[in-house]
C-alpha cells in the first residue's frame, strides 16, 4: 500500500498496525527517514516536497509489483510526506513483512533506493540563508544500480 500525505504521521502507530496485520509473517522490516537538521555546516530550517499526483502513486504501485515478483514478501507499506516539513519530522516510512528476514530486508532496501532515485518527488531544502532543490547524490544512484547488476 502506498500513502502520500501532506500531514504528519506517527511511524510507531503505523508500525504497530502493520505488524498486527502481518500475523503470519516471520519477519517485519521497517525503515524511517527523517528530515535532517543540518546540511553540511548549514542549519536546515525545513523541507518542501511536491509530487505528481496520480502519476507518482501509479509508478510506486508498479514498483511494489516488481518487489512482489522478485521477493517472496507478504505485505508492503510505503508512507511518503509532501508539503512543508520541519527538522526531525518523519518524511518516509517503508515496512515489509515476509516469511524470512533476508527477503524483508532486501525488499525494503530496494524500495528505498527506488524512492530516492526514481519515484516522482521533488524536495527543496530551506536553509538559514538560501534554498535548493535537491537531486540524488552519486551514492544514491550507485545504491540503486546494485539491483540492476543483480539481474
Amino acid at each position, binding site marked *: 500500500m502506498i500513502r502520500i500525505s501532506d500531514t504528519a504521521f506517527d511511524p510507531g502507530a503505523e508500525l504497530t498496525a502493520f505488524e498486527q496485520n502481518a500475523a503470519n509473517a516471520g519477519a517485519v522490516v521497517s525503515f524511517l527517514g527523517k528530515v535532517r537538521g543540518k546540511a553540511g555546516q548549514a542549519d536546515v530550517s525545513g523541507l518542501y516536497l*511536491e509530487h*505528481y499526483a496520480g502519476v507518482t502513486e501509479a509508478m510506486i504501485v508498479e514498483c511494489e509489483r516488481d518487489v512482489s515478483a522478485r521477493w517472496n514478501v507478504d505485505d508492503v507499506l510505503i508512507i511518503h510526506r509532501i508539503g512543508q516539513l520541519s527538522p526531525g519530522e518523519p518524511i518516509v516510512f517503508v515496512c515489509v513483512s515476509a516469511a524470512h528476514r533476508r527477503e524483508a530486508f532486501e525488499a525494503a532496501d530496494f524500495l528505498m533506493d527506488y524512492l530516492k532515485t*526514481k519515484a*516522482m518527488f*521533488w524536495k527543496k531544502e530551506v536553509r538559514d540563508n538560501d534554498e535548493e532543490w535537491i*537531486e540524488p547524490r552519486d551514492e544514491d544512484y550507485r545504491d540503486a544500480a546494485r539491483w540492476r547488476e543483480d539481474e
Partner: protein
Amino acid sequence: MARLLFFGKLGDLAGGRMREQSLPKDVVTIDQLIAVITADDAALGEALAAPSVRFIVNEKMADAGGAISDGDEIAFLPPVSGG
C-alpha cells in the same frame, strides 16, 4: 489548450506549477513546444531543454520528439529527489 506542468525547480523558474497554453498548429512535438517557450522566456526554455529533464504526456513517459496536441497534459520533470 494544453496543460503544462512544471515540477521542482522548473516550477519556480516558470513562476507557477501549472499553465494553460494553446499550441500553435505547427507545434506538434515537445521539442517544438520548448522552442516556443524559449522565445518567451529564455531561462525557462534552457532549463526545460536540459538533458536531465524528462517528459510525461498524458501520464505516459515521452521523449523530446514525442507528439503533443492541444488538450494534452504535458509535464516537465527535473531530476527527482524523494526519501
